């Protein structure tokens, strides 16, 4: 759905993005993580056509954004870090304006505005001016504006910054709701604990370089792919580990090992784990624990940042 290849962007003598390439499939929720100045906003702005592409290609839903940027506008919703709202308009006026300026020959304007306000949880405040709303509510109005034309892809730049815990939980739920409606989301954030709640994939940027693109498991939004499995057993002998590695050469990668514990990555469907388990039992390993583990996003991130 989103294919980024060799994307580079230089700004004010600084390489904001350096040869970034990745692919994102339909229905994913991608957490875009990195320290300040790592290129997250630039990447989102390039994908959303707000920043010109200097080198590389971005193809969205089969459309090359350099060739047909106006076509891409129709299928993308973008929310910038401070939500982009008109403080002196009411929520209804904001949504009406966005609908009229994002939907061709818009029909049933009132219905669209009302439904979007309900979806984003701002219907209660629809006739209030934006400057009277809390930050959490403003953010919801921003998201409502971004999704009013039912885009296939929604890009959210730091949506949770400055929100209280209650508003963050509500945001997580809203993001999962959008995914369930078939939207693909890229969410940049510093708050890893919050991303952990809903992300199916994680992209880490550092100084404009993509240093990790990984898929996550056990998240509330239900995505599966990269499977980390923890095995705890008595006296796991070295020859058994070697035999295990050679038997499952293409599907298993051992990440960490101690005499009593092995952490490995399964590159196949999670349902195939019973094959591994039966192999270990046949080899006489006294298995105490064999389970998929949730990788702590924060740990994963810090580990990656330190390694690279």
């Amino acid at each position, binding site marked *: 759905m989103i294919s980024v290849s060799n994307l580079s962007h230089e700004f004010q*003598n600084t390489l904001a993005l350096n040869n970034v390439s990745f692919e994102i499939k339909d229905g994913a929720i991608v957490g875009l993580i990195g320290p300040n100045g790592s290129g997250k906003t630039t990447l989102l702005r390039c994908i959303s*056509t*707000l920043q010109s592409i200097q080198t590389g290609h971005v193809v969205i839903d089969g459309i090359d954004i350099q060739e047909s940027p106006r076509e891409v*506008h129709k299928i993308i919703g973008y929310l910038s870090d401070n939500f982009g709202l008109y403080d002196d308009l009411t929520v209804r006026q904001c949504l009406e*304006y966005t609908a009229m*300026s994002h939907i*061709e020959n818009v029909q049933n304007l009132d219905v669209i505005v009302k439904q979007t306000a309900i979806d984003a949880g701002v219907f209660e405040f629809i006739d209030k001016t934006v400057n009277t709303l809390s930050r959490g509510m403003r953010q919801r109005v921003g998201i409502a504006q971004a999704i009013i034309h039912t885009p296939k892809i929604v890009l959210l730049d730091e949506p949770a910054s400055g929100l209280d815990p209650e508003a963050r939980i509500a945001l997580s739920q809203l993001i999962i709701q959008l995914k369930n409606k078939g939207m693909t989301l890229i969410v940049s954030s510093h708050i890893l604990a919050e991303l952990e709640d809903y992300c199916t994939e994680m992209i880490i940027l550092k100084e404009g370089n993509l240093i990790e693109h990984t898929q996550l498991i056990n998240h509330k939004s239900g995505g599966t792919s990269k499977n980390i499995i923890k095995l705890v057993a008595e006296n796991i002998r070295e020859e058994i580990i070697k035999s295990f590695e050679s038997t499952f050469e293409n599907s298993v990668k051992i990440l960490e090992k101690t005499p009593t514990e092995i952490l490995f990555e399964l590159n196949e469907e999670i349902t195939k784990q019973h094959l591994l388990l039966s192999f270990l039992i046949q080899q006489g390993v006294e298995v105490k624990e064999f389970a998929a583990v949730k990788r702590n996003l924060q740990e994963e991130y810090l580990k990656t940042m330190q390694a690279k």
Partner: protein
Amino acid sequence: MSLLEKNPEFKKNIWLEISTQRLIMMPLILLMVILLASMSPLGNTYDKLTNISYFGMVVILLFWGSKVAYSNIIQEYNDRTWDWQRMSILTPKQLIVGKLIGAPIYNWYGAVICLLLVFIFGVMGEYSSILDIIVNSVSTLLLGISLLSVSILFALLKIREGNGRDKLKTGQIFILLILFCFFFNSSAFSFMFNRLSVSAKNFNTWKVFGENLFYAIWAIIGLHQVLRRELNYKNKSYLWVLFLVTSSFVKTIVLMDSMSVIIDNYVFVYFVILSMQAISLFYLLLLIEQNEISSLKILLRKIKEKNYPYLNYNAPLWSLTFPFIVIGLISSWILFDKNILRFEDLWTQEIINNIKIEAGIDSFETLSLLLSLLFFILRDFLIMLLLQTTSKKKRIGAAFILYLFLLYVVFPGFTTSLGSKSIGLQLFIPLPIVGSFFYPLFECVVLFLIIRNKFKK
């Protein structure tokens, strides 16, 4: 379908700008001003009120309106609402109406009230004919369209400097822009002074109307082009070239009419104006266009790759303007003959007669003047490039102006005060002295080597 239903941008600006309170305040304040003015015992009351109403229109539409139109874009950028618009399906035409009429709608409202007052008092007074009043009023509205369009256009160029995160400040450059537009549209400038002075009765209103119409059309075309680019359409370069060529033509006609110059060689005057206009626009564009090193690197790469479609769509306007400086200067040099210039004004004629240069293409003095002028311009361009390589991006424009002030005003001033006239002066300003081009050429070479070194890094 009404404009409000067809144009969401216009509708939004009506929501933001118009309230009952504001609608009442404007005529109320204007009425009070008129009332106060009518109490003054000086002059014919109706003529006086015509001028005051006209002055009100100038202030409300041209100055305040331009400021509103400019700030509106910067505000949209700072609040990130501009991002929504850029990603919308709004067309450039819808945005032109929305930004040009919608955002300063309150100023247009005030201007229309003033216009009505001008018309009413003008008809009742002794000063002008009805035709004059109509033509002058339409001229002012056209001038308003030009200034507001150019203000929006400058704001759109300004926001390209932004990085998508930091906010931009509004207003600092604004007065300079207004002044530039006034000087550029020479009729507008003289018109304003003439219209505000009751004594000037022999004013060519049709010439003013013509020039204002010309620049209003081009201002809208320019705004349309910049908006197209913001909305991710591709622009071609020929319109800018067409503007330079036709604008010089209009200016030639205006100059011939207003300066009482008797010229046999119209082509010579045209090329002089073309080069002067290209030079002034070149410097302005260096200041307002985004000339980052990274963009220039891409440009150089595309030139090497012979990617002509990219260059056609993305070439900076200064790069399209520079050839016209060269064409204008060389053509003027070829056509130059001081004997062809005769002024009705004796004072101006004496200045021309006193210029101690030999006329003609075979003169080394005029050739030196031409070359030094070109090299000085090139040197200033290289200074701008050098400034772009520094880390302090926000002050580049101010630093560039400061350098120009030092190089063209302060240093020549010092040199003159030290008693070293033409020999020292040729270091800083173009002079018709044989070999004077050597100094700016040397500076160009040094600057080029420094920049090349920085580029490689």
